[in-house]
């Protein structure tokens, strides 16, 4: 196997081991019984780290042209930020349901 490919393979395996460890940690945290906001923040933090590893090293975005990387990142961050605007409104609905107040 060519040296460049052999080095790439080493990198892929290292990322694989890292992803296995992170996923194992997620399962451990899930079983240990953290609740609510703390659990959500931890789980999503781990998922974001996994995303960075996969996108940079397994999808090789890191080796693309700088302009393309910026294009992908800006679009994705915009989309994810917009999605976060939507779900936070659920706190208002939850408050209505718990208090019985709100529009009839």
């Amino acid at each position, binding site marked *: 196997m060519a040296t460049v490919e052999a080095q790439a393979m080493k990198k892929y395996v290292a990322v*694989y081991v890292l992803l296995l460890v992170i996923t194992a940690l997620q399962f451990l945290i899930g079983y240990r019984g953290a609740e609510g906001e703390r659990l959500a923040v931890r789980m999503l933090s781990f*998922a974001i780290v*996994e995303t960075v590893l*996969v996108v940079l090293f*397994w999808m090789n975005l890191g080796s693309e042209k700088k302009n393309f990387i910026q294009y*992908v990142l800006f679009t994705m961050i915009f*989309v994810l930020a917009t*999605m976060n605007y939507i779900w936070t409104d659920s706190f208002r609905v939850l408050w209505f*349901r718990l208090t019985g107040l709100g529009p009839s």
Partner: protein
Amino acid sequence: MPSKKFAMWLFIMADVMTFAACVAAYAFLRNATPDWPRPFHGVTSVAVMTFIMLTSSLTMLMALTAAKIGDKTKAFNWMMITAAGGILFTLLHIREWMGMINQGVHLFSNPWGPAAFGSSYYVITGFSLMHISVGTIALIIVAIRYRGGRYNADDIELMNLFWQFVGLVWLFIVPVVYLMNLAR
């Protein structure tokens, strides 16, 4: 960048938006419902499915590496191993669904109350399952055509991009749908 690769990235970005919408809708329902069900007593099969998905992502990269150095037989074999992982994952996923259906979880009803639980569960996991099962079929077709000389390493790279993406989506589904809803 080759136009095919750019098109695949655009497709993936569009798919990210769809999955993000699904997860945001799930988060909305989950957070706004005080008595949201927590039906998952054990997630051993989900852990096994995750392991299979991660391992098949690695075997896909091995196929890509072999294709880049022109080792057709090795690349074909690794792709078929990846496809076997996809089939195994799909079967385990269907088994998981059958377990939920046997517990009485349907699209618009379930034994625990909030009707949205079933629909959101089946939509998110079903959308992922659809991607993985269709991806497995595509993987087999690409592998056969690559061996036959119709496709080259660039096409394997496109397949790799798609396969890594569906694996990544699963890594979001596991914590959001399963691990945050373990029975206490």
